[in-house]
């Protein structure tokens, strides 16, 4: 069956995020004084085939560890959603 994974890659809290700081400043300049912090990151939508949810999640975790995130500087999280039912 086909699964949709939504993957979020973010800089670790200890890593400085100049893009986030710049965006926060721009929001403040626009008058949005409520903004306390902005952290930038990356978002991926990945469709994949897997027999069940556990298998899909295991695969996506491997995608993240091998390629999508650099463990030195980034954290990741994801959710998977079933797109099509199992074929009878």
């Amino acid at each position: 069956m086909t699964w949709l994974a939504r993957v979020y890659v973010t800089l670790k809290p200890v890593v400085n995020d100049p893009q986030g700081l710049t965006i926060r400043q721009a929001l403040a300049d626009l008058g949005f004084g409520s903004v306390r912090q902005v952290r930038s990151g990356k978002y991926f939508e990945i469709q994949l085939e897997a027999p069940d949810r556990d298998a899909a999640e295991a695969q996506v975790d491997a995608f993240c560890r091998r390629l999508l995130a650099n463990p030195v500087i980034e954290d990741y999280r994801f959710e998977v959603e079933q797109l099509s039912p199992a074929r009878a």
Partner: protein
Amino acid sequence: MRFGVVRFPGTWSDLDCFHVLSEVYGQEVRYVWHRETDLSDLDCVILPGGFSYGDYLRPGAIARFSPVMAAVADFAAAGKLVLGICNGFQILCEAGLLPGALLRNNHLQFRCQWVYLRVENVETPFTLSCVQGQVLKIPISHGDGNYFADPETLAELERTGRVVFRYATPAGEVTPEANPNGSLNNIAGIINRAGNVLGMMPHPERASEEVLGSADGRYIWDSIIRWADGRHPA
């Protein structure tokens, strides 16, 4: 000695590296396409600067999985010399051949300018022609050169003398103002534990002839060639 200059899709400093090694130094050089896996004819591999794979995902993140990189890892494990310049440094970090990572410059600007590097360790194959504390004038050209490592890794690099180059003033003072990208401890170049894999953000190949405004890059090429001659006397 025989050099290899690796070309990934998007590499842009390959011609400069080849020119300096062949025309200025009269060394044997060949290009290495990123799909090659046999480096057995080479003594030193250069990973040049550029934008391999368009810097997609992260600089170096895709290039590190090119077939040549497994061969480069074996080449390094055999004790042969690997020099990563700019994007090459980023690729070596992504590949785990050097620790840490290169983040977006702290001011978000792409910087193409002269910088001054203080040589911190002259007991490497890449710096043995320098004197301790010597200042080299060499240009940078990058948007992601902000060196980061966790505190333990950083402390180990410092304790073991593996910070080879630091951004400094022309007089050799390491100051925040001399740091062009936010790198921790003004780090511009580091070496692996075994001492045969060096990564640096500045471009010595762009400063190896006086006509270009500086020939200080020659200290690095001289070092590599002297080191190899010492091991394999003619």
